[in-house]
């Protein structure tokens, strides 16, 4: 376990979050936005897990479990919203949903 330095793991998690942001802001598809959010959550989870290992504390792992649970709930709600929107408009393009402009 000692083979992988903590900094590398943090870098990985940072890259994942950055990829998530890029995915959520750049892809022109609602499902991809949801996926981007998921990736950001996972990047954060990796940071939590690595920190729990680094300081030998279990709270980090507990956080990861919570994040996974919440992410599952969030995906179900988000997908339900997307399905509903698709039914109403027949489109998944986020640019179409600009009625608050």
């Amino acid at each position, binding site marked *: 376990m000692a083979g992988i330095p903590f900094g590398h793991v943090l870098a990985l998690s940072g890259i994942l979050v950055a990829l998530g*942001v890029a995915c*959520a*802001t750049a892809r022109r598809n609602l499902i991809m*936005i949801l996926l981007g959010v998921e990736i950001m959550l996972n990047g954060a989870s990796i940071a939590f897990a690595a920190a729990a290992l680094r300081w030998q504390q279990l709270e980090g792992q507990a956080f990861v479990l919570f994040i996974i649970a919440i992410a599952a709930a969030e995906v179900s709600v988000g997908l339900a919203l997307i399905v509903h929107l698709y039914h109403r408009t027949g489109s998944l393009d*986020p*640019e179409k949903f*600009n*009625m608050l*402009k």
Partner: protein
Amino acid sequence: MTYPAAADLTLTAAIAATALPLAAFAVILLLTRGFPRLSAALSIAAISVALVCAGLLLVRHGHLETPLEYSTLWMAGGDIVVRVGFLIDPLSLLMLMIVAVICFLVQVYSLGYMAGDPGFARYYAFMSLFAWAMMNLTLAASLLQLYIFWELVGLSSYLLIGFWYEKFSASEAGKKAFVMTRLGDVAFFIGILLVLLNFGNLSILELNSPRAGFLPPAVVTVSALLIFGGIVGKSAQFPLLTWLPDAMEGPTPVSALLHSATMVAAGVYLLARLFPFFSMSPAALQVCLAVGAVSMLLSATMAMVSRDIKQVWAYSTISQLGLMIMGLAAGDYVAGVFHLTTHAGFKALLFLCAGVFIHACGGNDMFEIGRRGARHLKIPMICMIIAAAALSGVPPLSGFFSKELILAALAGRPSPIWLAAGLLGAFLTTYYTFRLIFIILFPRGEAQAKDAHADGHNSEAGYRVMAAPLIVLAAVTGVLGFGGHALGRFLLQGFPGPVPGAGHPTWLPFAALGATAAAVGLAWFEFGRRGADQVGFVERVEPLRELFRRRWYIDDAYRWLLDHVLYRVFSAFCAKNDQKVIDGAVDGLGGSMAAAGRILAVLHTGSVQFRLLVVSVVLILLGLYYFVYPLN
């Protein structure tokens, strides 16, 4: 100021005379508008008391060595002192009496003339306002106070000229009178300010005292001319003379009041009031003389072609006011004031008679009135002939004496042109006066057998009410002329200015009488004799008739001036300024705001992802700031 022992009664009388008509005005407007008879009674009661007070004042102060002034400080600041109060001297007493008598007679006459008018109560309210303003103007002790009532006189005449405001021409005439007199009043006010700045005092007595002689002559001349501008507007002199003929739109008693004792007389009264002040500037007097002469001749020619009976008298008023101004400007104070007095009597009489005819015949056209049998109305016809003879200067009526005094004053001028103008004016006046009389007396064409008695004044009581003031005025016109010397002595008591010389050439009365007789003869030849076709010699010359009928194109000149100078240049400039400068600034401000908003609105696309991006970028920047910046 020392108050004589008897001062209290005098003061009380002055206050009563000047305050009661105002009280009547207020009560009528506030309480009794629904009760026409009560309103008329109130108004007439107020003016009667004022008349009694004026008579009392005149009797008490028949021998007044020095003018009485009751005044109190109104404003003072630095070198400037303005007082208000009453100034009682022969001139103001005389004028107060004239105003009270004419107002009283006209209000009594109106009982018959205005009977049944829906605005009867309103009419009497305005009449009271008019009387109040004029009496206060008469007794005003300072120029500013005089100016205030001067404007009130203008206001009330506006209200009365436009009394039948449902009629478009009447409301237009009221507006015209108001605006044209206002033009002169602006000059008057600037003149007052000039006097105030240079003299520091607006008291009429002070202005007339030798103290004013220390002012620089240029200042005296300029301020006198500016004040004369107000007189030109008020007394309808050239070039502001066209409002007066239009003011005929008001009820006839109003015209009588306006033309004899109140509105237009106020101008001449002011000139007489400030006579010593004006005398200090020969240049200003010369201008007054010229303006008076031009107005007199112009309006006399206009009267020669008019067919409207009231309009003829209106032109004649302008002409006679011009004559008064000439008399005053020629340096004869008594002559001008005497003619003002006699003119008030016979001009009121002329208008009131005309009112009876108009009432009876239902029209203003003199040919129509003649055809309708106006000569059968004995009392007004005789009274009108008396008044017309007085206007023409036929002895022994009042106009003869006063006119002759003015002509004598004009004869005293170095240049003979003024006397010639005066004699020509007298000739023209007589001509147009007797033209009217002969046209009414000897109607041509199918004489409509309808007697005016039958349909005109079906109420005999109304006729009698109207006839009574006529008889009184005719009697006054008959005897007033012989009071000239007494009046002269009365007026010149304690008079600071130079007493005008009485010497005049002996041939002058004969010349004046000759002009009058020639004019009567000419009028008889053209209008009176059997077989005359009733077309005057000026009416035969088409361009001349057109010139006179269009009032020498003075109104057209104003129209042109308005259209081409005021509207096209001045108004256009203002409109340009409004559009380009003011609108431009406001529009530019708004436009730049909108443009800025449009640029910022690019950030607001409504896209979810764009917001997310912005949030991320801001968070990253904040993170950089928080983590990186402190390390530096």
